[in-house]
């Protein structure tokens, strides 16, 4: 399973997809991952930062959407206070 989480004032919104179904070209799973990719790109353009979180909790900042990532978290634009 893959998951994109987008932090916002509403808490985090999530999009999930079954990676195996994506590989099998299942239309629903493909639509979900494409929607996740679109949201990722839009958020990045708006100044958000994205992190790939591995199963062992390793965190890595990413600039491009990783279809193989188990979990991606998008943090909205941050500013020094």
């Amino acid at each position: 399973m893959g998951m994109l989480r987008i932090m916002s004032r509403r808490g985090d919104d999530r999009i999930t997809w079954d990676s195996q179904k994506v590989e099998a070209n299942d239309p629903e799973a493909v639509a979900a991952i494409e929607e996740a990719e679109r949201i990722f790109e839009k958020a990045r353009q708006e100044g958000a930062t994205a992190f790939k979180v591995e199963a062992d909790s390793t965190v890595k900042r990413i600039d491009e959407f990783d279809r193989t990532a188990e979990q991606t978290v998008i943090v909205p634009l941050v500013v020094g206070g």
Partner: protein
Amino acid sequence: MLETLSLFLGIWLLFLLLAIYYLSQSPDGSVGRFRESVSGHLSAESRAKALLREMLTESQYQQLIKFGYLEIPSPSIDNRVYRVPGSGGLVKVYERGCAVMELCLQPAEPLPDGDVVVMHKLMIEGNEQEYLQKANHFAPGIISLRCQHL
């Protein structure tokens, strides 16, 4: 004196309850929106708490609950720890147990408290240098200038 105070408090609470009751009967839906807003806030907080629970280890979560902050070891600087408050405020930076600076970094749009903690954790662990570049740095306060052991 105490009885008078209790009486005033009781009357005030009664008026408050009555006001809430009458507003809830309002036909223009303003309280409906208020209810939605409160319920949305609670829902956001509960989702943020769930995310926090998933992103933190058991010991980190317990630390946050017990002490009100989360300590994140620096991935690149030996003996440095970032102390992230659980309910907003400056992130305190300690080196070998001494407060060395305080950092202020916040999301441009308001996030639930739990999400803010996760935000700091991800940014510190995922790209510490960028985190330090974006944050405003402050000298530790007068009290924290003393060597504060962890």
